[in-house]
């Protein structure tokens, strides 16, 4: 391990310790139902593990998150590629992408509850609506940054357009697609929790909602901790390896 990464990891650990100390201090100032201590949160977490609820709800949330993320990644990425390559399609669809980007997610959540009822459909739909405009915009930006000299080279050698897209555009935009994937992965966990709070009776968000109703704030914190952990794990185990895989040539 290089000195640089040792120093980085050290700072990282110090930062986490500082956060834990601040949390502990605040929990001593406020009552437990306002800010529970780290100890109370861990106890709530262990109790959720012991009851089996944690793994059951986590499995449901992960399933919904991955379904919404995958839809957003593939549909948003494909639409971004098409919009980036074709100005007419771009001009036609861009106002709607902006519309989705700026419209409040909570409005979509209420509408989705009317359309789909409570359950998986609402969560997957909300993740998709909240994240796929970001995926589209990132991919369009990637297409715009493709080196025009490489495109001109391929055109001069009469490389067919399908080959041009497959072998120049897609490899060029992969770093942008992966940056988009990293952003929407983080958004996915937030969106799934929000959708489950109102739109589901199972899942981490629903667990949070039950904790709030029963004034079990340590439980709300425990579910939040789990969600944050899932966010880190997905970033480290899914996004970063993929980013490394698609930029081996750099």
């Amino acid at each position, binding site marked *: 391990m290089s000195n640089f990464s040792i120093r980085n990891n050290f700072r990282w650990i110090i930062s986490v310790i500082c956060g834990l100390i601040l949390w502990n201090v605040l929990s001593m100032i406020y009552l437990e139902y306002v800010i529970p201590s780290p100890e109370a949160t861990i106890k709530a977490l262990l109790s959720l593990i012991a009851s089996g609820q944690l793994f059951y709800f986590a499995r449901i949330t992960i399933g919904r998150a991955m379904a919404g993320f995958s839809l957003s990644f593939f549909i948003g990425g494909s639409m971004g590629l098409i919009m980036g390559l074709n100005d007419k399609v771009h001009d036609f669809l861009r106002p709607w992408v902006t519309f989705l980007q700026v419209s409040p997610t909570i409005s979509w959540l209420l509408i989705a509850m009317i359309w789909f009822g409570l359950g998986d459909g609402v969560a997957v739909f909300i993740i998709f609506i909240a994240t796929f405009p970001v995926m589209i915009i990132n991919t369009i930006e990637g297409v715009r940054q493709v080196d025009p*000299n*490489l495109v*001109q*080279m*391929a055109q*001069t*050698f*009469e*490389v*067919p357009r399908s*080959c041009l897209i497959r*072998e*120049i555009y897609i*490899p060029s935009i992969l770093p942008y697609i992966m940056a988009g994937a990293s952003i929407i992965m983080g958004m996915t966990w937030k969106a799934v929790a929000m959708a489950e709070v109102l739109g589901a009776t199972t899942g981490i968000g629903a667990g949070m909602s039950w904790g709030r109703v029963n004034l079990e704030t340590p439980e709300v914190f425990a579910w939040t901790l789990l969600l944050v952990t899932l966010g880190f794990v997905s970033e480290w185990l899914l996004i970063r390896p993929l980013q490394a895989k698609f930029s*081996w*040539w*750099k």
Partner: protein
Amino acid sequence: MDLQVENVAKSWGEIQVLYDLNFSLGENEILCILGPSGCGKTTILNLISGIIRPDAGSVRFSCEGKTGYVFQEPRLLPWKTVYDNIAFVLKHWMSQDELDKTVKGYIEMMELNQFKDAYPRQLSGGMKQRVSLARAFAYNPDLLLMDEPFKSLDLTLRFSLIKLLLKLWRSQPKSIVFVTHEVSEAILLGDRVCVLSSKPTYVKDCISIDIHQEEREISDPRLLMIEGKLYKLLAEE
């Protein structure tokens, strides 16, 4: 492939780049176009390749055929190996066996055997330009346009690439338009050298070099005399 450029004019907005430009290129001839920086040399190649159209005049070819291009920068795909960069321009029209044979043949001819699986970032500037040359010749064009391909290389590397280019040209003769601002490159390569004026650009004169490329040495008094003539033409207002 023969080429006739007749009375071509081209402007970019208010700026007249080319004015009454005339020259021709014979079958399997190397025509060097020599001109000062910024005189519109790349514009001439873009007109020939059809990337842009002239405002007046015509660019005529003796027959239908393929045009290859060697650019100033090698323009290699950074995510492809040397082998795959050459194969990239061939695989949509060549069978797999033929492609493999062709690519390997050019890799060997360009002395890149050790680097066939290397990525562009692992290559020096000279090696990258060798891959670019191999790609252009492997494409087997009837007309090859070369836009100051050795511009960013040092003198030794430039002369070694000129030798490699001549080796490729001898093994696979074709008509070449070689644009440069280096007199030494023009006199080592060209069957004829056309000297351009500054903007608006026209052909001042074309000089034939009747010494076989294989016999040319940069210190040859006959070449030095031609070099002097070319410098004089370049310096003339």
